[in-house]
């Protein structure tokens, strides 16, 4: 197996699917400023997906470009974590999902920017700048909603209870990671998890939220085993490419 291809594909799919989900908010945000912010973050994620999937295509060496990978694979070939494909829910659910993701991506990109793989390092360096803003934005909202009104606290606590089961998959590790960690190309996710735990505990505590004690883990995305939601995302995402095959847009 081409481990680096698989690894970059996973990163690219996370950005692609979360960017898609966030873009569903466009025009429907709770305030105009947040409509702008969410569209902006979505745009950053689509940009990351373009760079990452483009590089994955090069690594694969079968002539597939970023668009071919984004639009023309089957459901079981997408490798994003289940967290990013979860429905938007209310604004608090979206911000919490984003916060869990950003808290993972920031330390990951901090390490990856020093990767011995120059191409990956360059993408990570650029994405890190964006991700720092995303994390600042999402953590501020988690705190604001957690420590806002009784209603907002209850709502985001419920989102926390729902999404918690998907967080562990961010640190899913298999032979792909093991090989690349050994070669010194990518960081160990155990290191990233330590930092993630610290960020998440600090923010959720400040937000006066209760971290669920149920540590039941939901995973499968990294192996292409998804929730029912992904099929519908792909039905929209791939619509044009499937309905009008082999055309340039």
């Amino acid at each position, binding site marked *: 197996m081409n481990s680096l291809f698989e690894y970059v594909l996973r990163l690219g799919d996370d950005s692609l699917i979360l960017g898609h989900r966030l*873009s569903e908010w466009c*025009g*429907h945000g709770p*305030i105009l400023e947040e409509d702008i912010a969410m569209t902006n973050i979505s745009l950053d994620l*689509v940009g990351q997906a373009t760079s990452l999937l483009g590089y994955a295509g090069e690594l694969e060496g079968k002539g597939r470009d970023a*668009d071919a990978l984004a639009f023309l694979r089957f459901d079981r070939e997408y490798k994003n974590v289940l967290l990013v494909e979860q429905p938007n829910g209310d604004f608090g659910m979206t911000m919490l999902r984003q916060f869990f993701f950003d808290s993972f991506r920031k330390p990951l990109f901090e390490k990856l920017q020093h990767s011995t793989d120059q191409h990956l390092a360059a993408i990570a360096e650029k994405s890190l700048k964006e991700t720092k803003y995303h994390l600042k934005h999402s953590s501020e909202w988690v705190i604001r909603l957690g420590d*806002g009104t009784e209603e*907002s606290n209850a709502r985001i606590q419920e989102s926390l209870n729902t999404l918690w089961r998907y967080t562990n998959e961010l640190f899913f590790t298999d032979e792909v990671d093991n090989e690349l960690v050994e070669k010194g190309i990518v960081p160990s996710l155990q290191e990233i998890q330590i930092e993630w735990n610290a960020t998440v505990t600090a923010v959720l505590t400040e937000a006066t939220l209760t971290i669920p004690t149920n540590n039941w883990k939901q995973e499968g995305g990294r192996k292409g085993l998804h929730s029912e939601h992904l099929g519908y995302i792909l039905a929209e995402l791939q619509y044009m490419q499937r309905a009008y095959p082999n*055309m340039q*847009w």
Partner: protein
Amino acid sequence: MRDINISELEQKFQAKIDNDVKIEPNDWMPEEYRQTLIRQISQHAHSEIVGMLPEGNWITRAPNLRRKAVLLAKVQDEAGHGLYLYSATETLGADREETIDDLHTGKAKYSSIFNYPTLTWADMGAIGWLVDGAAIMNQVPLCRCSYGPYARAMVRVCKEESFHQRQGFEIMAHLAQGTPEQKAMAQDALNRFWWPSLMMFGPSDADSKHTAQSVQWKIKRHTNDELRQQFVDVTVPQAALIGLTVPDKDLKFNEETGHYEFGEIDWTEFWEVVKGNGPCNKERVDARRKAKENGMWVREAANAFAAKRAARKSA
């Protein structure tokens, strides 16, 4: 306090306008001038915000990553325009939330073009090319509008609109040169959006109730019919260039005047859509109202948190 005669103030005000001196928020202005601007700028803001919906409809289905990114950026620009414009109405003493509520109750209007559905990807091209193209015709003269904050907002808005117009034309040109299915899709979009785009300039001068006063105040620099003619003159050759046919059997170039003559606009349709009977009026306003209602708890939480934080700081 010295009793200043209103007519003296009005004369000074009109003199400023006649000398192309900008009116600024703290300057004296006739109440009617203020109200006209609030009405016009808020309608413009609402159009930007409602205008996000028909294009937002295709973001999740954009055909490739580049188109998706460009469309996201364009719709985001529109949200930004809405924000500057609501801010401009605030300089006139309007309250942003009340202004938005007027949209939701149907009291305030927005551009009728956004009450038409976006049915295919080519509609993203048609909207950029025609709708943003028409918006530019309307808005470029507003960069010289007598009210300073509006004029300055328009400078930036127009730069972005001009980029939007080009990206729309580029989508259309691409489709028109593509496969037969793509070309048919482009032609169909032009057929559906052509007439509503001409209607964007508003009623004929003879039926426009606001034009005369607005021209005197330099809020408006050209009449609706002048701008509409300018749009037709610019756009018809563009359609020809990419091999699409403008859906108007009466369209012809008049060598003497140097302008295109075009067919009669269906004003019954225009007024019906303005009244709320367009294909998507209800969906558009419902979507905006729902966004506000669903976001209420978020805004309340943000206010409550800000108050708590301020209390902690002062404690």
